[in-house]
């Protein structure tokens, strides 16, 4: 029985509910949540290895055969993401322990984080389109709450935009599902794929695919990223790190899944459009990243650049490019979380948000500075950190298919990433030290250890590519051959 498949989603749900009862016991709440993430990571590792031997796993809820019931499908791609999610969340939680504060922790903070993760993991694992919508909603509602938690003015005014835009995008998602159901009469992803393939993706289906594209573009921040810089600037650091690491990635995941499994018959329309959007996103993100001196803005625009970069891989759509996208996805989840944590820590220790108001931090906080340096290089795709291999593979795909504009944009954008972060490093960490020993806010262990763990992650991931290569290879292979997925789900082997 594959019941273990549901665990990454159901354990956080149960934990989230139980924590509501455990409201007064904050210490307990912390460790329960942390434990949940660790257990999830363990389950993900177990699943990942099972997939390599047994092929794609599935769990039919209630025993209802697909396409009638809902099911969870675990292929390498989704489980890799689940694994990364769990690890990143666990580390962000560690940071949260010593940063969010009792007042917020007391307001069911850990429950919401658990629910958020349940939504994220559910979205990765589900094999049913409507269920994907529901999982998205869980994630979004939890994020609505988390972003507002604290109730500061800026939080409220930014989250209003975040909520409204997401409500509209969820609505578009809903009507897209309705259109698709109306056309092909099913909701199961594999079954949908089969039926779409059978019809040869009629023009109408192409139109519907663009509706889906709109939805996921909104969620992933592909060109339609207007909500993102504001929304990611306001919440507590740990929450911002989670958002930066996870939320857009779910949109990206969904987009990759939908456009490799369902709508892959008309790449001249859909994938071209994705390519154009990705290119524009890279441009917009790059320009935004160097536009501001507010560290939170710089960091947020970096998220946008990464979205564009990953989806360049999808637009190109070769095996190499998809592998590259997957590597970069993993890399970006880890490093973006770290980047947000660092930015948040810098703001807390200096009480400033603008880089030109900070100076010489490396004297006061050397480890923070060097970790930032590593992140900077890692994000710019400089080896041997983790961004490197993804970049190479996407570049390889782009060259193979002759997508030179995307190639140029993708690689030039990493210069902008480097420059934007270099500005922070030069302005804030180097230069005259202005904080004296006495005024210095002491660096808490709870802040620096999570950062160290994550920076260790990027180094290990960069050097140990070979360790995850077979999984990524399998993931990309499944994405390239939708039939594998269909066969596994619909019992046709």
């Amino acid at each position, binding site marked *: 029985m594959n019941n273990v498949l549901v665990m990454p989603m159901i354990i956080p749900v149960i934990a989230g509910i139980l924590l509501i009862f455990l409201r007064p016991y904050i210490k307990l709440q912390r460790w329960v949540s942390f434990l949940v993430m660790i257990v999830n990571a363990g389950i993900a590792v177990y699943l990942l290895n099972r997939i390599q031997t047994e092929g794609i796993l599935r769990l039919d809820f209630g025993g209802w055969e697909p396409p009638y019931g809902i099911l969870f499908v675990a292929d390498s791609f989704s489980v890799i993401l689940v694994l990364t999610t769990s690890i990143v969340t666990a580390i962000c939680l560690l940071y949260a322990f010593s940063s969010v504060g009792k007042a917020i922790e007391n307001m069911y903070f850990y429950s919401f984080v658990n629910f958020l993760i349940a939504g994220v993991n559910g979205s990765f694992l589900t094999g049913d389109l409507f269920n994907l919508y529901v999982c998205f909603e869980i994630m979004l509602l939890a994020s609505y709450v988390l972003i507002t938690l604290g109730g500061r003015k800026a939080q409220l005014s930014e989250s209003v935009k975040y909520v409204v835009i997401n409500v*509209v995008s969820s609505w578009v998602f809903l009507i897209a599902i309705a259109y698709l159901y109306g056309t092909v009469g099913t909701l199961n992803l594999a*079954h949908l794929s089969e039926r779409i393939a059978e019809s040869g993706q009629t023009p*109408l289906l192409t139109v519907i695919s663009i509706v889906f594209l*709109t939805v996921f573009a909104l969620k992933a921040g592909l060109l339609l990223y207007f909500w993102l810089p504001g929304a990611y600037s306001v919440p507590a650091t740990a929450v911002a790190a989670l958002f930066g690491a996870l939320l857009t990635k779910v949109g990206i995941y969904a987009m990759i899944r939908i456009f490799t499994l369902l709508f892959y018959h008309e790449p001249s*329309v859909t994938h071209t459009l994705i390519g154009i959007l990705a290119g524009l996103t890279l441009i917009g993100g790059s320009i935004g990243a160097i536009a501001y001196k507010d560290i939170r803005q710089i960091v947020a625009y970096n998220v946008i650049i990464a979205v564009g970069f990953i989806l360049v891989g999808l637009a190109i759509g070769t095996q190499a490019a998809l592998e590259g996208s997957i590597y970069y996805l993993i890399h970006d989840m880890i490093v973006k979380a770290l980047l947000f944590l660092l930015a948040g820590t810098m703001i807390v220790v200096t009480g400033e948000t603008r880089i030109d108001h900070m100076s010489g931090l490396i004297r006061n906080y050397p480890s923070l500075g060097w970790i930032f340096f590593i992140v900077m290089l890692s994000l710019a795709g400089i080896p041997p950190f983790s961004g490197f291999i993804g970049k190479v593979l996407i570049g390889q795909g782009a060259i193979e298919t002759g997508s030179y504009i995307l190639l140029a944009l993708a690689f030039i954008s990493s210069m902008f990433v480097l420059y934007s972060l270099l500005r922070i490093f030069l302005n804030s960490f180097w230069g005259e030290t202005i904080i004296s020993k006495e005024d210095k806010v002491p660096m808490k262990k709870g802040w620096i250890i999570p950062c160290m763990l994550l920076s260790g992650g990027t180094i290990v991931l960069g050097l140990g590519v070979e360790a995850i290569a077979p999984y990524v290879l399998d993931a990309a292979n499944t994405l390239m051959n939708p039939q594998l997925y269909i066969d596994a789900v619909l019992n046709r082997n």
Partner: protein
Amino acid sequence: MSTLIIAIMVPFIAAAMIPFLYKKIVKLHIGWFAMLVSTILFIYLARFIPSIARGETFAHTINWMPSYGINFAAYLDGLSLILALLITGVGSLVILYSIFYLSSKESLGHFYTYLMLFMGAMLGVVMSDNMMVMYVFWELTSISSFLLIAFWYQRKRSREGAKKSLLITVSGGIAMLVGFIMIYVMTGTWSIREVIAGAGGFASHHLFIPAMLLLLLGAFTKSAQFPFHIWLPDAMEAPTPVSAYLHSATMVKAGIYLVARFTPVFGGEAIWFWLVTGVGLVTLFWGSFHAVRQKDLKALLAYSTVSQLGMIMSMFGMGSAALYFGYSTESVVYTQATFAALFHLVNHSTFKGALFMVIGIVDHEVGTRDIRRLGGLATLMPFTFTIAMIGSFSMAGLPPFNGFLSKEMFFTAALTIHEAGIFSLDAWGTLIPIIAWVASIFTFVYSMIIVFKTFLGPYQEEKLEHPAKEPPVGMLIAPGILALAVVGIFFFPNLLGDYLLTPAMAGIFPSFATEGLGVSIYAWHGFNREIWMTIGVVVAGILLYRFRTYWMGIYKIFDDKWSFNSLYSYVISFMEESSTTFTNSYMTGYLRDYMVYIYLFFIVAIGGTIIYTGTYAFDISGNAPITEFEWILTFVMMIAGISILFAKSRLTAILLNSILGYGVAAFFVLFRAPDLALTQTVVETVTTVLFLVAYYFLPEWQKEDVPRKSRNVNLIISVSVGVIFTVIALAVQNGKLFESISSYFEDSYKLAGGNNIVNSILGDFRALDTMLEVVVLLIAGIGVYTFIRLKAKKEDEHIENQ
């Protein structure tokens, strides 16, 4: 030889150990440890000389990412060995020098860590066979150079210089990476050896030229070729040992190494020839020309380095022409340029290293490097003066110093090549010796400036920070050794040539028989054209030097405003400013604007696809009939909906919304959905109550006083969205392709024990949705509670109020 990889790793290990050692060992200067490492490596590498000279090569591989063919492959041949020896040899000397140069108050731990990091990276670059691994080390050199330039990071100029060098070299590195990937796509291997082995097999590939250009971009930025040279003078903010080591002897040679390494692949192509030779020559001229005007000795040396690098580069370019002809006895003549290039590569490291150290000594002892304040130091610092003279005269190309030999060979190459008759050389080839000659004159001039302005002339003690005196002996050892090498090579050039340069030639021209490649170097080869050129250089140089006050005005034409430097600063500041303006112009923070963009995207993307694919056919023949009641209900809902827009009070709006809700419920009844009708009515009521409860606290609904223009925009957008929504829906109703799966659920009683199909779906077939929807509700409930209960304290607000 697995020790090769260990050799590359040793500096890294040392780099990791230094911070600890620095903390533990207080007494001993940490530099000695670094020097030990570097010397051991030098000796280790030197042991390879005999076998390499016999034509052997060494390789060793450790798997890194075998799935992608990216492995840690070390490869040592003649070419690598020259550079590796330079790296470790000059490295040892520089470290020795730095031990006396840097005061122990500096953060030496950092310094030597970076230095070791650099040494390892540089060894990695020259000894990697795998292009990706080479790229890894390549970027590492940029990074360690960045760290070293900004060693005094409190200084703004250091930071700016570091930033400039990092941006330029990393951009080049990324270009090179793309070039590498292109080569991989063409050949299917990351191994440089395999690429060289297959050279020629893919010359007609459409990626061949782009790959070459990108590769050259990487090489040119790293080797500070025109117009990317601008970072090098600014890099002189680094401590002088660093300048001596990275920015003249080793790192900047990485680009040259790259060109040499890939000559077998791309050499023989006209573009390659012209780019490498042309850029090299322009750099040679531009660098020497600008070196003359410098007032700061270090800047002078920086420009001189730029110029010398250009010279080496151009020689590699000329040499590559030999590959056009393939191997024959005639074509071997052209390979001499390459030989000269390798020779000068070594020579340059010796004399330039010595010069940098000397300048460092001057700076260290008298506290300034400004030639306007210096003068007459020769008597006070005789040893220093001697070394400086040896270096300068070698640079100027005078005997009996090694620079003379390579300069002569340079002239020979320049003269030979323009007679080759290929690549339209007959049209432009004459320029090559002319530029070479003119640039040599300037080289002569600035070499003289170093010697005469610094060490001769009047001694102005009042302008110096400290009175001049000889430095500690330790500081003189390293430059002294280099000066000895300068002289030694002049007298025994063939020792170097036979053991190092000739094997390196084999690496560059693998298709040529090794025997023909070696060149015997002679100091004297009669009164040929080259020697007359040299004499011309000396004469013209002396004249120019004597009368420089008359022609220095020429530099006014090259105003600072129009330099590449100001272009760089302009681009940077323009980018920052315009990006702020641009981003602010659309990221207004106003929800309506964002929604307008989103809807516009919706309209353009989806509407465009609809028109493009022509999906707007529909017919209404299959529709169910409509009764009067339904007409009326629809009509009422439409009117109610539209009236919301004109509602004068919020209560009216809520009421109208309720009509919509109840109307939808009525439709659910008409469409035979009792469960939905039930739920919809209750939910609608609860929502209404919620609206009432919340709206009590909200301000009264005010008339929208937005400008007519934006109102029209809103109207157009909303109508378009509505139309697109409807058009797709109608198309879908018309274009049903498959039967729905839902007939399966009609067995719900048998399957799930429920008569109510909808409820069975919710409670059983799709129970997960229901379960999760419950979670959604729970989140909403608890969330609302926290929204209301958790209010920010006033002191929490401070961060965003700034």
